């Protein structure tokens, strides 16, 4: 009861109309209406149902937190703590977990090609689009009650502001001050709810400039590349904590993806 009340109340909290202020708002609305995301969701559905791995089973019994095989609302409640893995997982970490535990695949094999390209998407990308679609219209309510969820949120916050690497960058170097741009790209201040909300509610997304679905694990990876840091492991505690931190900051926002990004 308490959790439900919480979610409803948060959903009532006003969401600032930030997107409307952008000169690109009209473009973003029209591209979202006419995006080819469904094509990728369809591919994701095929992968979800495809028998794979040494155990030759599909992912249809994968428990994304709402029970084995339950897709509705699963994405809106991630990242969250999973007792079977004793850690907080985001969607991609959880999908990887299912590939390993259900399908019997090795981590090495399952993560060989997590980020695809325009010519060929990755399993992880199309699966993310497929799963996320089933949370459309539902408020983001990531886990925050379990001590490990709390710890993950706090770790994410610390990492967000942690400057390191040859260019001395933290996430906040680009996403810490209002009204800034990189080239023509507007930079959301991702530790503030009014910025995190519209952003986190639209991942994963079809990225126009790369003609494919991009995921949050990819976003973390590519930010660290441009921060001149070494590469984070796919689905690691670091990337999950950052995603968790930003999703908790955005909590209550209605999920409206997979969307479209520049």
């Amino acid at each position: 009861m308490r959790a439900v009340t919480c979610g409803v109340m948060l959903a009532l909290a006003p969401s600032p109309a930030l997107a409307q202020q952008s000169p690109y708002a009209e473009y973003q609305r029209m591209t979202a209406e006419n995006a080819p995301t469904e094509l990728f969701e369809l591919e994701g559905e095929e992968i979800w149902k495809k028998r794979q791995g040494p155990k030759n089973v599909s992912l249809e019994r994968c428990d994304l937190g709402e029970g084995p095989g339950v897709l509705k609302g699963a994405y809106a409640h991630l990242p969250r703590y999973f007792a079977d893995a004793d850690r907080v997982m985001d969607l991609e970490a959880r999908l990887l977990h299912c590939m390993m535990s259900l399908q019997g695949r090795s981590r090495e094999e399952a993560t060989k090609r997590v980020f695809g390209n325009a010519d060929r998407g990755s399993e992880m990308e199309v699966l993310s689009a497929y799963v996320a679609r089933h949370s459309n219209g539902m408020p983001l309510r990531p886990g925050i009650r379990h001590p490990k969820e709390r710890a993950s949120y706090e770790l994410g916050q610390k990492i967000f502001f942690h400057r390191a690497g040859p260019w001395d960058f933290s996430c906040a170097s680009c996403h810490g001050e209002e009204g800034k741009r990189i080239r023509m790209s507007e930079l959301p201040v991702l530790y503030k709810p009014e910025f995190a909300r519209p952003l986190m509610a639209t991942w994963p997304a079809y990225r126009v400039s790369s003609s494919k679905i991009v995921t949050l694990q990819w976003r973390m990876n590519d930010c660290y590349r441009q921060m001149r840091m070494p590469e984070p492991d796919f689905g690691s505690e670091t990337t999950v904590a950052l995603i968790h931190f930003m999703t908790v900051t955005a909590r209550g926002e209605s999920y409206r993806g997979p969307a479209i990004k520049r």
Partner: protein
Amino acid sequence: MAAGPMRMRATLGAGYTDVRVLMSHPMETGQRKGSDGKLIPLHFIQNVTVKVNGKTVVEGQISQAISRNPVFSFRIKGGAKGDKIEVSWLDNQGETNSTETAVA
């Protein structure tokens, strides 16, 4: 990329049926370089045909200026639940694909 799946939705609107169709296609302009540094040959859909219950209602001719993974919306006058909508395409390399759905 080879041409891939299609997806279509046909929904009753105010006085018309809205047909939204998605096509998986690279729509190569012939100007883009691949990872090997060589130009990727021109490869794009040239013809799009919409049929309602077997009768052609829209014939489209398009160029490489249509975005990768094309998405089109058309509107069919009137329409009723269960009407069969079929969309097909043909590209400059002779590949073709089609999909059909019933108006929902």
